[in-house]
């Protein structure tokens, strides 16, 4: 057992180094004392690329890392052993999210969280109902509609994977749904910051929109950091707002899986003895969120030093989560497979696109009409 773990850690090193190298190339090495300003700094320095690519299209280090990751992952024939390290990308993102808790106080969480719970819950109910209704209208199988509903309503691919066994979805349903959600997610990374910029949304408004309208957690992080990267002394406001909405949505996952399992087993007339509160709720509860809450607790009690201006401890933690996000999102880009995107098709594509697009537009309208410029 220990040998297996040691062997995996050893095997993961090359892939982690590759993700780190791409992140270092785009982000620059000042934090580590490496005299390389980063690709973003080069693009920003030139008047044309600075204006078009960085200011308008938001090609900052996060987006550049994802694009380079996608290109390397799909076009460069990488040796098989390098994937062991790249597969740790989600661990880096979770580590970053836990450390991100150091940005908040209890008051922040309570203030942002209350609106987030109401808005996210309303959107989950609307999206679930709409996707299941549209699935029925277009003749989609109940299991297929259920996995798609979970993907569009809660948190993308994780929700599809969590729901599939509970609703007894076929592999084809899962593949089509993942293709659809992934295609929308990739488009979101590019389009959300662009639209937010064109509509002059404030970082807080953008965070609410991205946290409500984008389907996958990693893509919410990416879009928020692309729109407003922040600095170590002034943390990203869109990330701070967007992540609270994102985590609120993720926390609803177990309840949505349970609800879909019940709905699906009734509509497909399946025995429901396998659905219990234990398997449905606790087993799907994302426990890493507890780490995020512990960080909020430590910060609120001042155990990590003063927050304004941030203490040396908090600055180090901010630098660390920025690196973890850059490395994790590079790996996320590397794992976006072009061939998988092409698998999106059929009725799931139609239903998924209508639900995802409808959700994004409705969320934008809510933000423009009701969300203030500042929290």
């Amino acid at each position, binding site marked *: 057992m220990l040998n297996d773990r040691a062997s995996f850690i050893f095997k993961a090193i090359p892939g982690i180094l590759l993700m780190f190298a791409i992140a270092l190339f785009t982000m620059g090495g000042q934090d580590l004392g490496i005299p390389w300003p980063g690709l973003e700094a080069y693009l920003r320095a030139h008047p044309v690329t600075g204006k078009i690519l960085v200011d308008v299209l938001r090609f900052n280090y996060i987006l550049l890392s994802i694009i380079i990751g996608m290109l390397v992952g799909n076009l460069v024939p990488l040796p098989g052993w390098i*994937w*062991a390290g790249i597969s740790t990308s989600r*661990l880096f993102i979770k580590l970053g999210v836990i450390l991100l808790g150091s940005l908040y106080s209890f008051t922040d969480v309570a203030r942002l969280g209350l609106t987030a719970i109401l808005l996210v819950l309303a959107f989950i109910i609307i999206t679930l109902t709409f996707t299941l209704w549209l699935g029925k209208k277009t003749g989609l199988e109940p299991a297929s509609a259920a996995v798609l509903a979970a993907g569009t309503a809660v948190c993308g691919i994780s929700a599809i994977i969590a729901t599939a066994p509970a609703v007894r979805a076929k592999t084809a349903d899962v593949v089509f749904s993942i293709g659809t959600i992934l295609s929308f997610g990739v488009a979101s990374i590019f389009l959300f910051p662009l639209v937010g910029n064109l509509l002059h949304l404030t970082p807080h408004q953008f965070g609410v929109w991205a946290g409500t309208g984008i389907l996958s957690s990693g893509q919410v992080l990416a879009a928020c950091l692309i729109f407003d990267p922040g600095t170590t002394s002034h943390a990203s406001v869109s990330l701070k707002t967007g992540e609270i909405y994102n985590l609120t949505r993720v926390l609803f996952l177990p309840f949505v899986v349970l609800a879909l399992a019940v709905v699906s087993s009734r509509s497909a007339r399946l025995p429901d003895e396998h659905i219990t509160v234990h398997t449905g709720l606790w087993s799907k509860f994302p426990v890493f969120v507890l*780490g995020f809450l512990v960080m909020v607790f430590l910060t609120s009690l001042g155990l990590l030093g003063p927050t304004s201006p941030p203490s040396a401890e908090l600055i180090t933690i901010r630098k*660390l989560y920025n690196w973890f996000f850059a490395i994790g999102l590079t790996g996320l880009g590397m794992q976006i497979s072009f061939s998988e995107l092409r698998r999106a098709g059929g009725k799931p594509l139609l239903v998924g696109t209508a639900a995802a697009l409808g959700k994004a537009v409705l969320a934008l309208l809510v933000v423009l009409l009701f969300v203030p410029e500042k929290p």
Partner: protein
Amino acid sequence: MKQTPEDLPPKKRHGETQLFTPFATERMEDYAALTLSLLIVLIVLMLHQ
């Protein structure tokens, strides 16, 4: 060199689509993230003492 399933890219494993992760369950990945973050916070606090 002989390749194990962990060595293969996500799209080629088991011939089906899945969210690829080295951890047996998502819960284990969460525990790993919690442990590592605890370690990081302790190291940061010690470094700045």
